């Protein structure tokens, strides 16, 4: 048993794999959360481990917390990059270089730099972020998270089961394997 899959996976979430994979791993994250930045390499290694396994999918969803002033704009940046096919690359960059932008009052300048490095159309990227084009999407993710009883980040679900804390790579794999 697990939670409502439609609520968990969402309609327009970024997914690596298919929605109806046997095991779907979902992360609700906040780009400005240090714990999420810590968990990101583990999540990326997990994705790498199962990239050729059609039975396992990975979903990333937003849960920007109100105490993180730049969390929302970072989520917008990730979505804007996603519109140009580079959501996961931008997400990775945001987590890896969190210290660069986290406390900056003007993070968009930094994000445009990241977009440039990813080879994105920076004009379209900036317009998207400035126009808060994906605000509804991000707010929907946050609303779904609250409906699922989530109150912290990162929060992971494996096969519909909520996981406590940040598991190690081995713990993650055990959870996945037990459901395959």
């Amino acid at each position, binding site marked *: 048993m697990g939670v409502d899959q439609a609520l968990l996976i969402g309609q327009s979430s970024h997914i690596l794999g298919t929605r109806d994979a046997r095991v779907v791993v979902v992360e609700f994250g906040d780009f400005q959360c240090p*714990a999420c930045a810590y968990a990101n390499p583990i999540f990326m290694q997990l994705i790498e481990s199962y990239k050729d396994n059609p039975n396992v999918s990975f979903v990333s969803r937003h849960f920007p*917390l109100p*105490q993180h002033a730049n969390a929302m704009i970072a989520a917008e940046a990730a979505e804007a990059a996603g519109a140009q096919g580079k959501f996961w690359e931008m997400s990775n960059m945001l987590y890896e270089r969190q210290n660069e932008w986290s406390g900056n009052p003007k993070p968009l300048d930094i994000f445009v730099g990241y977009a440039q490095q990813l080879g994105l159309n920076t004009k379209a990227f900036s317009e998207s972020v400035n126009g808060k084009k994906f605000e509804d999407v991000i707010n929907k993710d946050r609303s779904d998270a609250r409906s699922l009883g989530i109150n912290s980040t990162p929060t992971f679900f494996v096969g519909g089961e909520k996981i406590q804390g940040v598991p190690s790579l081995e713990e993650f794999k055990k959870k996945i394997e037990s459901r395959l």
Partner: protein
Amino acid sequence: MTKLIKDNLLYIAWVTALVSMIGSLYFGEILGLAPCSLCWYQRIVMYPLVLIIGIGIIKKDKHFYDYALPLSVIGGGIAFYQNLLYYNVISEKLTPCTFGVSCVSKYISLLGFIDIPLLALFASIIITATLLIHKKHTHHVHGN
């Protein structure tokens, strides 16, 4: 000076608790700095101390330490933990970010490093120390 402090240990403890309570309410209600979860737990143990110590002084109750000290020690423990997070001794990356106010948000800084969590810790230490010293002194005098 030492005698002055010794004779007024309980008042020092009470005033410290009172100032802590008023200060936290000022930060929260007047300055609008919302307390995080750890701050709430510290408030839960600190606010009753104002009454317990105050009544203990008035009634000259020799046993009020039994009620006050556990609270001040618990409060000190929570404050100590928060300071470990605040000053990055415990890496925040290991602590999930919780919905609501962050317990490491930096609001006010005196002399460049004395922030609210450190003030709270000082308060707990002062209250605990003064109560313990007075208790020891009282038991020594009365042979209890």
